[in-house]
């Protein structure tokens, strides 16, 4: 119970600061939309090929926008050494991790909610209505896995000299299963394939999420120790 109070406090603090300046969300959104525009120019939206590469484009856009947000999430705690203030708080270290993770997850989800319809409109891609629940599940699991590892590694890289460059390089190789799973599952769902075809991808996503939500319980204190 105490854990939840702490997590909620951190999330509300982050969101309150973010909605005052909207620095992070606005740049994530603009970046995501720009990515769509680039894709429109790169792949002719009238061609049939679009049907095949659509899931890939969507996830590339989500993930790049997510990295942009993740990069800031701990760097912003460095102003006035707020991170030490967090370390001083009488809560389990995982509370800090899950608080930051939840805030990042919310940012990325907002970006996804805005950009996915835009994708569908600009590429004239009809998302079948009965596919929506499965799609939501996959996007949820994929985003969770990516931000889970991302938050952890962002905390790690925020201590480095050039953290903005370091984070993507260390984050992408580790999250290969998430990217692969999310794109493949999305493709299977959108093409109306049999449930069995995307369920195994959901399993892999679930396994990844489970592992990387448990690992921080053990390892996050080593990242925070000053």
């Amino acid at each position, binding site marked *: 119970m105490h854990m939840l*109070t702490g997590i*909620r*406090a951190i999330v509300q603090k982050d969101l*309150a600061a973010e909605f*005052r300046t909207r620095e992070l969300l606005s740049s994530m959104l603009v970046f995501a939309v720009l990515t769509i525009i680039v894709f429109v120019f790169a792949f002719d939206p009238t061609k049939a090929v679009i049907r095949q590469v659509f899931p890939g484009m969507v996830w590339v856009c989500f993930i790049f926008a997510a990295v942009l947000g993740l990069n800031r999430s701990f760097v912003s705690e460095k102003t006035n050494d*707020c991170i*030490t203030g967090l370390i001083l708080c*009488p*809560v389990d270290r995982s509370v800090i991790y899950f608080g930051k993770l939840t805030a990042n997850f919310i940012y990325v989800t907002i970006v996804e909610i805005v950009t996915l319809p835009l994708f569908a409109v600009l590429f004239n891609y009809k998302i079948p209505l009965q596919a929506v629940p499965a799609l939501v599940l996959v996007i949820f699991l994929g985003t969770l896995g990516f931000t889970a590892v991302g938050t952890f590694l962002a905390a790690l890289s925020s201590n480095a000299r050039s953290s903005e460059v370091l984070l993507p390089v260390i984050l992408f190789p580790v999250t290969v299963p998430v990217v692969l799973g999310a794109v493949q599952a999305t493709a299977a769902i959108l093409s109306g394939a049999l449930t069995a075809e995307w369920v195994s991808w959901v399993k892999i996503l679930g396994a990844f999420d489970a592992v990387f939500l448990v690992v921080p319980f053990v390892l996050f204190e080593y990242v925070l120790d000053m």
Partner: protein
Amino acid sequence: MIRAVGLTKTIGRKEILRGIDIDIPSGQFVTVFGPNGAGKSTLLKTLALISRPTKGEIFIDSMDTRKNTDSLRQKIGVISHNTFLYENLTARENLEFYGRMYRVKDLKNRIFDVVSQVGLDFSINDPVRTFSRGMQQRLAIARAILHDPAVLYLDEPYTGLDPHAIQILNDVLSQLNLQKRTVFLITHNFEEGIMMSDRVLFVVRGKIVYDGGRDALEKNDLRSLYLDKVKGAA
């Protein structure tokens, strides 16, 4: 209140703390002096449970800090030259956040109390980034005492403070002294440092080289004693 045994901290190959034993009874006001890079801040960080010692044990309230770390943090307040404040949040939001993290009871009234104690009643709804350095530091003081800690650690709190803020800080400290709170102060400022102090420590090159009661010292003696000890140990 605070007891440390054989405290050692090595960072990489550098030995920052080299076997520190210390026992601070409840309610004592301890002032620590020492040259730059002597390990004072590291000592404070380990005693405040911000970083872990490489070797040695720390007890707060006779409890082993390795076991009850999270609940023992409840008893600790820290004021450093960094304010730990979020610039985009208002003073009230900052205090609300920390108050919730420390699970402060009756938070609204408590915030009102500490804010008036540091004289920021009228700016409570302004974002911290509009505050002057002195005001930010005052808010940092309010933040540190918000959960009424049994031990207050201060790391060079006087640097960059205007006389008004120094006055407020000293008021807060003397009030804590009256309430029998333990205070652990690191400073270069002999005048301010010794005013309320019960006990003086000199730390040089990761070791305590002098540990004496306040009554044995006059202000001027302190300075020459300090220079003596620092030269002798270096």
